[in-house]
């Protein structure tokens, strides 16, 4: 029997298709109250006074908390989980991020008061009656403007709004000299615009203090319940960790935005003990727009130098990374260790230097969004490659092939050591591009493109070949890089006396289908039917420990932890089986759910061994009863998926409308457990990456208002904006984890964005432009054609 590698239909589907999914906002507790936040309408303003007298007396109002109350309780705010030091060794600037601000609002949406009432409507009514007097200050939203002398200061003690600066790679002087002496240099200055994650389930949190047990429970739409518990207990509220339970029930998409510890989570937990009733807070969508950590927001200048044959000689990149008003949980890692380290790409570039300034502005915090740093790195490299090809009159596919790193399997051949601090695990890059070219029918396309000349349509093709660092991450390595947490994963495999198996995983599924793919792994490795396996996740009272799901890590790290526990179960099971069979362990083989004495037909089944473990009457001497093992798996390295994305666009000359006609993706995510689920991950990633290229982007006005902060104004791809995707894969197994998997959650987003923009640029190559700013809207394209 083999489940691994087959497209088993998802076991979690049933509850979702019948309307029985249980998301945080679906949970109702006895005596529950509802919270509505009073939020700053100003991007930057001193808070002169907060008057709750009238609101307090309104119908149904239970309690109103302001920043004065949280200050008086000595609550310092939510912490940042990753430290990056300045180039000169100083610690990054880490101003407090209060749960409720009492002195100054630093972005639109900063919370000033929490109004709690018997119903949400009552809380909302009362919140409108809280009177806040502001002294409005000039605001800054753009990281370049924020760095200038005289710019508004987001935090008084952070000069020029610089949170930290950072550098990686070869000495800058060496890189600059190589660029100065090169045959050809391609330069791009571009903005990788801010995008908003927009999981369709808005964030929600319920805090419950149970006076019977002196125990707190937090239900929250999170990607990592245990980490939230740790931060809540150790940093924000000082609660005893064994008296806090955090549950991430069904979660309606995350894409990064639900990794982080948010102020509202701490507020409902703390508040529930103050009022001795549960408190539910659920974001309205317009609230999500101004409070969910956003993604990207880089301003970059990058140069790539070539010799006369088109070999890459050097790369330099300078980026301003907008951090928003506060440092969110993983924010400092994104432009640095998840972006700078990826600038080797798939190429043999011998000299690389990257420099980052991380900047505070009066905007919502920026943190990891699907891909987190790696899409920005890919955009930088792949826009440079297509631009360079155009400038040098080279074919963009050939230019890439020529510069690819040679294949290496990470076993016989060493992993590839980059100029920017990584060692790739295994890679074979040519085949993904060649397969992509085959699928797209490259020669035919170029003929069609020519044929379209003179018609009302322009056709363009764009390439992107990417690499990502996933399977986050070896604890010691990330510890040295500033992570304030280990990034291992844990799993418990509990065999019941009847031979059924419960698996407790520290990974968290919010759409990825762990309940299916993890069960496939368990069933295969243990030789039992999938129906006998249940995957449990998301509840800190059920799962001993976990580091959650992000960075395409669940299967590579969480799945490996499960495999380790299975190995322990089977090892002990073999001892019991040997005893029952009166044989030596060394003479047993395990297959299809039974131990057999090699060369005989004597065997004992998994169910009998399980029962014996719990009814140990006839049992090996000295062996403990029970069949239940936990493991912690700390990966040896990151994993490095890679791939090739090719986009074909058609532009209507008259209207400037850009249509993505075809999108081809050939990804290599290592071994695949469930192809259907992996394909689904790629599809979703592609839609988000393509969305950034042609329609998405946060827009702020001068005063710091997010002007497109609703679904009516922020354009996300809808079904009729996208084609059906054409996807395929190659398989280069990961050499350092037991499943050989690399991770598939982010690949689609990482590779796709530059492919779309490159395609638009290819279509517009007759119009003498050097670059086009994302999102590539029809208006921008029309202006290029008719301007």
């Amino acid at each position, binding site marked *: 029997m083999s489940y691994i590698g087959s497209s088993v239909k998802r076991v979690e589907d049933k509850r979702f298709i*019948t*309307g029985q999914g249980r998301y945080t906002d679906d949970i109702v507790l006895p005596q529950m109250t509802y919270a509505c936040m009073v939020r700053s309408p100003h991007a930057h303003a001193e808070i002169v006074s907060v008057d709750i007298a009238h609101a307090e007396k309104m119908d149904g109002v239970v309690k109103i908390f302001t920043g004065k109350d949280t200050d008086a309780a000595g609550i310092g705010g939510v912490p940042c989980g990753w430290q990056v030091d300045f180039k000169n060794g100083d610690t990054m600037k880490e101003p407090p991020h209060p749960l409720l601000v009492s002195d100054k609002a630093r972005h639109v949406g900063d919370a000033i008061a929490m109004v709690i009432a018997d119903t949400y409507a009552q809380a909302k009514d009362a919140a409108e009656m809280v009177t806040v007097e502001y002294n409005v200050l000039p605001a800054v939203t753009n990281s370049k403007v924020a760095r200038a002398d005289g710019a508004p200061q987001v935090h008084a003690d952070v000069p020029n709004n610089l949170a930290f600066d950072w550098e990686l790679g070869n000495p800058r002087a060496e890189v600059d000299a190589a660029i100065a002496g090169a045959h050809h240099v391609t330069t791009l200055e571009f903005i990788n615009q801010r995008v908003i994650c927009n999981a369709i389930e808005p964030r929600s949190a319920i805090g419950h203090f149970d006076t019977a047990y002196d125990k707190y429970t937090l239900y929250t739409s999170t990607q990592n319940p245990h980490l939230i518990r740790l931060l809540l207990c150790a940093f924000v509220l000082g609660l005893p960790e064994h008296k806090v339970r955090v549950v991430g029930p069904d979660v*309606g998409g995350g894409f990064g935005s639900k990794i982080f510890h948010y102020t509202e989570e701490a507020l409902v937990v703390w508040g529930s003990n103050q009022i001795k009733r549960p408190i539910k807070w659920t974001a*309205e969508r317009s609230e999500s727009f101004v409070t969910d950590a956003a993604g990207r927001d880089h301003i970059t200048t990058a140069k790539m130098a070539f010799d006369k044959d088109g070999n890459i000689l050097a790369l330099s990149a300078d980026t301003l990374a907008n951090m928003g008003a506060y440092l969110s949980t993983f924010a400092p890692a994104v432009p640095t260790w998840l972006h700078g380290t990826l600038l080797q790409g798939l190429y043999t570039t011998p000299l690389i230097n990257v420099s980052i300034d991380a900047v505070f502005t009066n905007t919502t915090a920026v943190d990891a969004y699907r891909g987190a740093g790696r899409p920005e790195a890919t955009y930088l490299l792949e826009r440079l490659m297509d631009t360079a090809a155009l400038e040098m009159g080279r074919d963009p596919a050939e230019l890439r092939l020529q510069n690819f790193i040679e294949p290496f399997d990470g076993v016989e051949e060493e992993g590839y050591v980059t100029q920017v601090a990584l060692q790739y695990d295994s890679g074979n890059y040519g085949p993904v591009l060649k397969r992509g070219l085959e699928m797209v029918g490259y020669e035919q396309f170029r003929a069609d493109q020519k044929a379209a000349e003179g018609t009302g349509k322009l056709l363009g093709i764009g390439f992107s070949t990417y690499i990502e660092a996933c399977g986050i991450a070896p604890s010691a390595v990330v510890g040295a890089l500033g992570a304030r947490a280990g990034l291992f994963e844990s799993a418990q495999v509990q065999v019941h006396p009847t031979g059924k198996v419960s698996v407790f995983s520290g990974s968290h599924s919010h*759409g990825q289908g762990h309940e299916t793919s993890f069960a496939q792994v368990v069933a295969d490795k243990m030789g039992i039917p999938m129906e006998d396996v249940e995957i449990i996740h998301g509840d800190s009272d059920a799962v001993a420990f976990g580091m959650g799901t992000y960075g395409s890590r669940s299967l590579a790290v969480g799945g490996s932890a499960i495999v380790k526990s299975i190995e322990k179960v089977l090892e002990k099971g073999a001892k019991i089986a040997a005893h029952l069979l009166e044989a030596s362990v060394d003479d047993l083989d395990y297959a299809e759910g039974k131990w057999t004495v090699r060369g005989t037909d004597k065997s004992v089944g998994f169910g009998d061994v399980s029962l014996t473990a719990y009814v140990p009457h006839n049992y090996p001497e000295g062996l403990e009863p029970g069949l239940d093992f936990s493991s912690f798996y700390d990966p040896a390295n990151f994993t490095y998926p890679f791939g090739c994305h090719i986009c074909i666009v058609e532009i209507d000359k008259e209207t400037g409308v850009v249509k993505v006609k075809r999108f081809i993706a050939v990804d290599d995510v290592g071994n695949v457990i469930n192809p259907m689920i992996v394909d*689904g991950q790629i599809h979703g990633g592609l839609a988000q990456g393509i969305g950034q290229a042609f329609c998405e982007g946060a827009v702020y006005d001068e005063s710091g208002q997010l002007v497109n902060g*609703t679904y009516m104004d922020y354009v996300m*791809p809808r079904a009729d904006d996208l084609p059906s995707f054409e996807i395929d894969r190659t398989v280069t197994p990961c050499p350092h984890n037991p499943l050989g998997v690399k991770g598939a959650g982010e690949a689609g987003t990482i590779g796709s964005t530059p492919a779309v923009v490159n395609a638009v640029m290819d279509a517009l190559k007759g119009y003498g432009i050097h670059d086009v700013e994302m999102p590539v809207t029809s208006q921008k394209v029309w202006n290029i054609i008719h301007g």
Partner: protein
Amino acid sequence: MKVPVSITVNGKQYDKMVEPRMLLVYFIREELALTGTHIGCDTSSCGACTVHLDGKALKSCSMLAVQASGKSVTTIEGMASGENLHPLQEGFHMEHGLQCGFCTPGMIMCAADMLKNNPNPTEEEIRHGLEGNFCRCTGYHNIVKSIQYAANKMQESA
């Protein structure tokens, strides 16, 4: 001040007193505890709240409960008959048309209306018909296939 409403939901009549400003979606979720109908936005843009009102797809956040009084509502919970899934529910399962599942009830309710009016839609018609519903997980690729699956199945059994 509360006002009486009488709404039939999934075949059962409910008589309740509600605030006049209560939206139909809150009536369904909070008064009836039918939480399969979701709320994804505050601008009637996402379609997560889609139900059927007298057999037609409707975003239940765009109507007051009092406006639905005397009418008949079907939610996702009313789509299967006993253990038998609706062909669309089956289609979403078979074609992996859902990931996090949050948009799924709305997608299924929207698609059910679409197939009633157009039992054999082209891909383009399906995509066009889903215009009012956001999915952030699937890239729509498999949602299209799920609806095609259901269309075929419904035609076969018709």
